[in-house]
């Protein structure tokens, strides 16, 4: 696999493209990288430093852990306090602060909270531990949701009745519209998420180019991939052309993965959900359809959690919207560190603040 990737990590080629970008670029250009994976890769490789001063790479809202609202964490904790519940979650989620505590603190207080690597680990528990009610916290964008859809269908087919999901899944288009429609938005172009696009295809971005006048280029995660995408976007920006391009053709097909989308549509429907830092965005999330409602943890249990107030000092919201950079937040590296995160952006392995903290500049 790595030999396959090596050509996309070819340093001389990457530097050559970077030089071409610098040569091409004559005016300021704000590119938002939507995906947390891109933020991490940009920081890890030092991409911002080699593309020249005109190009400003801004992190976007594409990290599923970061956009999980406080009230959803509170809900998960409330579920974990119900007798016989074992709550299963991806690792990053357990450190995200809720109103009173994080899942990690709830675990330390004796709640049965388990870290899993896949929804199938949780189904494995459900099959083995019939006396337990296994609840999986389902987060993620279009990339992750098809797997959860398949898992829910499997449980329905096999009659697994002690399994449920707390659906926190979100979809990209409505959130991108929200970010880019803001009056003061300074985003000129998007570096679009490679993994999400393998499922959605390129069509998802048409409205961004046509209606919002923002160029889009789908990119992979290696230095050559990202630089190639930045080059394509810069080329358009210089001549004032708005366009949709795919610089990740080895993985992303124009039509995306129809089978995965069909599976998702069979199990889930659009819902209005709350995003950390954004509030409720209509049609930006998912909920289980009626046929699968018996797996909906929100319906299995009667959970009543009061609305949560975001810490007004934490600037996660503005960081997720690309308005501020982590260094603009007074808490960054002072009150907010990976050991004691104040906001989700510092927790997630793909969070903007975590990336800036981990891969710090000199």
């Amino acid at each position, binding site marked *: *696999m790595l030999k396959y990737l090596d050509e996309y990590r070819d*340093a001389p080629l990457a530097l050559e493209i970077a030089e071409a970008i610098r040569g091409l670029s004559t005016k300021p250009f704000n590119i938002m990288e939507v995906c947390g994976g891109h933020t991490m890769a940009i920081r*890890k490789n*030092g991409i911002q430093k080699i593309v020249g001063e005109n190009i400003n790479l801004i992190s976007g809202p594409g990290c*599923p852990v970061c956009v999980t609202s406080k009230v959803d964490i509170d809900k998960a904790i409330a579920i974990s306090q119900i007798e016989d519940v074992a709550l299963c979650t991806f690792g990053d989620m357990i450190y995200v602060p809720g109103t009173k505590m994080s899942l990690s603190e709830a675990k330390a207080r004796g709640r049965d909270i388990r870290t899993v690597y896949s929804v199938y680990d949780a189904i494995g528990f459900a099959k083995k531990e019939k006396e337990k009610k296994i609840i999986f916290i389902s987060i993620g964008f279009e990339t992750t949701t098809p797997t959860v859809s398949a898992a829910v269908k499997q449980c329905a087919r096999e009659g697994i009745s002690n399994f449920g999901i707390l659906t926190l899944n979100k979809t990209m288009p409505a959130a991108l519209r929200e970010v880019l429609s803001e009056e003061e938005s300074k985003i000129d172009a998007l570096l679009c998420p490679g993994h999400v696009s393998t499922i959605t295809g390129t069509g998802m971005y048409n409205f961004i180019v046509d209606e919002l006048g923002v160029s889009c280029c789908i990119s992979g995660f290696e*230095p050559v991939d990202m630089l190639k995408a930045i080059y394509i976007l810069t080329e358009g920006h210089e001549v004032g052309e708005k366009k949709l391009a795919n610089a990740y053709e080895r993985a992303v097909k124009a039509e995306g993965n129809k089978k995965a989308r069909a599976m998702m549509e069979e199990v889930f429907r659009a819902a209005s959900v709350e995003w950390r830092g954004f509030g409720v965005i209509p049609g930006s999330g998912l909920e289980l359809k009626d046929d699968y409602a018996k797996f909906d943890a929100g319906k299995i249990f009667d959970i009543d959690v009061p609305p949560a107030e975001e810490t007004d000092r934490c600037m996660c919201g503005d960081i997720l919207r690309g308005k501020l950079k982590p260094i603009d937040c007074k808490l960054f590296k002072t009150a907010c560190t990976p050991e004691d995160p104040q906001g989700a952006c510092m927790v997630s*392995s*793909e969070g903007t603040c975590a990336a800036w903290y981990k891969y710090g500049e*000199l």
Partner: protein
Amino acid sequence: MNSKVTIAHGSGGKMTRALIKDVFFKYLGNDILDRCDDSAVIEIDKGRIAVTTDSFVVKPIFFPGGDIGKLAICGTVNDLAVSGAEPKYITCGFIIEEGFPVTDLEVIVRSMAKWACEANVKIVAGDTKVVEIGEADGIFINTSGVGILKHDRELGVDKISSGDKIIVSGTIGDHAIAILSKRKGLRFESTIESDCAPLNKMLTEVIESGAEVKFMRDVTRGGLATTLNEVAEDVGILINEESLPVSEPVRGATELLGLDPVYLANEGKVIILVKASDEAKVLQILKNNEYGAKAETIGEVTEENVGKVCLKTILGVTRIIDMPTAEHLPRIC
């Protein structure tokens, strides 16, 4: 003998004696242990002694390339060896969960015997406790180790100065990925084995070569990033990403899981900080040894950026490598 360890095996009575005789003494016996005294009395050669202790709670107990017993011996031996000591004696305390299979215990003890022999150390004292089901997870091992420093050289971070070269004894991240793949049932194209190994003979050779070694440390939990940050208190460190040795399968696995090899645990790797003029000499000794064949010089100590570990990426950009904070987990989207 029962096929499972029971509470009675830890009661101090006949069953305990039987377990000690049939499992521990059978494999670990030597002139000192066989005396069955309350403490081991050992003759010390002239010189200073180094003492260390460690606990082993690895899960799973058996993993590709090793087991908890091998880990306990190698971990203790390596802690002594990086201090410049020649490891001589080890004590072992076993905390065993009731119901643990005796056959598994035998495999672990046999493995300890094998690696103690390989590292030329004697196990001179031991203890066994059995706890009820749920009070431990299979088996935990605590060790102490004693080593002798036959030379009067002083190693320490205070000896490091700018210009010193930093050598790592081989590929990084192998142990963490071996454990992770076994624990989570992840399968990769080829089995990734733990690098767990006793490094004492190789490190003794380095010390005896007369090379001006300033400091050595085994690169374990928290990976290379942690060890280098521990070193960089009063100096700066600059590492070249290009020269970091990472095996192809480990690189593949870290790509897939979204992990960074510099943060991953090792159990058979050491960093050696050496005066630049002796770099080639040390590198050659390592490369001639089976546990150091893939050794590389990865960077150097700098006057600038005191207290920081910097990494020059493949694109020539320099960034900071910080200490890791929480357990590193795979990417989720």
